[in-house]
């Protein structure tokens, strides 16, 4: 009955699969470790932004505190590994589960707040989290903790000689985040979230349980972001509070989605592909001590986008245009 819809869904899958294959081949040709590092970070932030997009893009609850879940993932994995010898793979799932639970515990009071107040609350809560970790002696306090390096191992997810395993893991992460979003787009939750974002009153009158929708979105979003945090901790093998829970991570999760197209399937990845290399390059060429030049550069970018194409860069490829006429 609805052929065009099924076809579009199938085409999206096909495009994603092709892009994944292409991406998987890239590091076989580009062996420069700095470039590989940028590619890994791009994929990681693409995945993070995609996860952020679930709560803030689809469900419309703008969070500027997702660094909290990123940090929770990083710390859970690192602490479980260094203190109890738990392999990072389990730490990753544990971090995800803890983050999802905390997201719901925080959502319980915060989702009663509307609009900007919610966004402000998320910033404050993430800052509180940062302060707590900074003063938590057992977790290394402000100095942070180092992952003991014990040679290359898949079980411990440590590779000193090659960046390739990290690259493929980051690619897998991006694929998973994309695929989860794709699945959710055509599910009850996906529809509920978009309805809640557009008009909560109308949503309620149509049987949408607004509070539950927000809680669900927060849990999924936080879980995936924490997985990203775990990965980052293993990748850099040294974490301190500021380097995994600082406000800049919250921004770096939000901005790619905003740039690429908030609440869209491809927006976050597209945004990350443009923003993250730009950030890294400005940091290494203009930056140095000038922490913030990168922020200025893409702050400008966002302003331009917001003025010229508020639906994000994805609007340039808009398939919707044909439909809207």
């Amino acid at each position, binding site marked *: *009955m*609805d052929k*065009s*819809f099924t076809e579009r869904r199938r085409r999206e899958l096909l495009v994603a699969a092709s892009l994944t294959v292409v991406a998987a081949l890239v590091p076989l040709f580009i062996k420069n470790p700095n470039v590989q590092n940028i590619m890994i970070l791009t994929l990681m932030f693409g995945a993070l932004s995609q996860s952020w997009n679930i709560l803030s893009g689809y469900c419309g609850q703008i969070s500027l505190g997702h660094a909290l879940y990123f940090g929770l993932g990083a710390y859970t994995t690192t602490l479980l590994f260094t203190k109890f010898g738990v392999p990072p793979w389990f730490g990753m799932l544990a971090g995800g589960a803890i983050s999802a639970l905390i997201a719901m515990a925080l959502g319980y009071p915060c989702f009663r707040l509307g609009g900007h107040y919610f966004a402000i609350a998320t910033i404050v809560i993430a800052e509180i989290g940062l302060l707590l970790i900074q003063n938590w002696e057992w977790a290394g306090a402000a100095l942070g903790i180092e992952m003991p390096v014990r040679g290359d191992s898949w079980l411990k997810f440590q590779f000193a000689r090659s960046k390739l395993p990290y690259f493929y893991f980051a690619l897998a992460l991006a694929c998973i985040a994309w695929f989860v979003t794709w699945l959710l787009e*055509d*599910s*009850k939750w996906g*529809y*509920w979230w*978009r*309805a809640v*974002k*557009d*008009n909560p*009153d*109308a*949503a*309620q*009158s*149509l*049987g*949408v*349980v*607004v509070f539950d929708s927000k809680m669900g979105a927060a849990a999924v979003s936080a879980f995936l972001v924490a997985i990203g945090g775990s990965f980052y901790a293993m990748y850099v093998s040294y974490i301190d509070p500021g380097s995994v829970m600082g406000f800049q991570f919250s921004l770096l999760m939000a901005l790619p989605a905003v740039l690429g197209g908030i*609440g869209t399937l491809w927006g976050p990845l597209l945004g990350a592909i443009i923003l993250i290399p730009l950030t890294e390059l400005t940091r290494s060429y203009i930056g140095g001590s000038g922490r913030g030049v990168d922020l200025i550069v893409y702050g400008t970018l966002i302003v331009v986008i917001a003025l010229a194409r508020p639906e994000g860069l994805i609007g340039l490829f808009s398939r*919707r245009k044909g*439909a*809207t*006429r």
Partner: protein
Amino acid sequence: MTALLETRGVWQRFGGLVANSDVSISVGRGEIVGLIGPNGAGKSTLFNLIAGVLPPTQGTIWFDGEDVTNMPAAERCQRGVGRTFQVVKSFETMTVIDNVIVGALVRNTVMREARRKAHEVLEFTGLAARADVLASDLVPAEKRRLEVARALATEPKLLLLDEVLTGLTPTEAQTGVALVRKVRETGVTVLMVEHVMEIVMPLVDRAIVLDLGKVLVEGKPTDVVRDPKVISAYLGDRHAVGA
């Protein structure tokens, strides 16, 4: 058989303002009932109480033999109360079909079925040609129709229509009237708030007139429009005497 909807001694106060005082109405199964009254009569408030937007200050509301006084709106929708909004509340960033799917998900858990149901409803309401258009691109009359379509997709037993015919051109309003009749034929009970008396009166089986938060008169539309109390509420005492 008991009434489908009943309000018993419902009061709603907003601070010092009494929007509804001691309102007891009932709507039987299969009826089309018109809720009319001048501006500020408390029609919209009563509507919101029935839909579950807020609980009444005092009194109880019964739907389908169950006390729903404190039941949230979403749950009432699941029990079979569908509504439209006076000021249209479309999901603007979603397409017409997606708007309707949200409603259809109440009774269909499988996406494919929800989608099929939504298409059915769009056919029924004459919006099928606009299925893939963004809701924000609809003209006002179509948006009103979308409100009805969304509510119908929830397969309600009772449909609350809040001024769906107001502000339309006469032709659009006539199509609207035809749609409401068609809805009733499918066995749905309709309670409609309406301003435009000449459109709503031939349509409804019974009219309830609210004035200053109270039920003023209730009865057959032809009797109600001739009632001096109604005329005076709308036009002032002088006209009532003249009638």
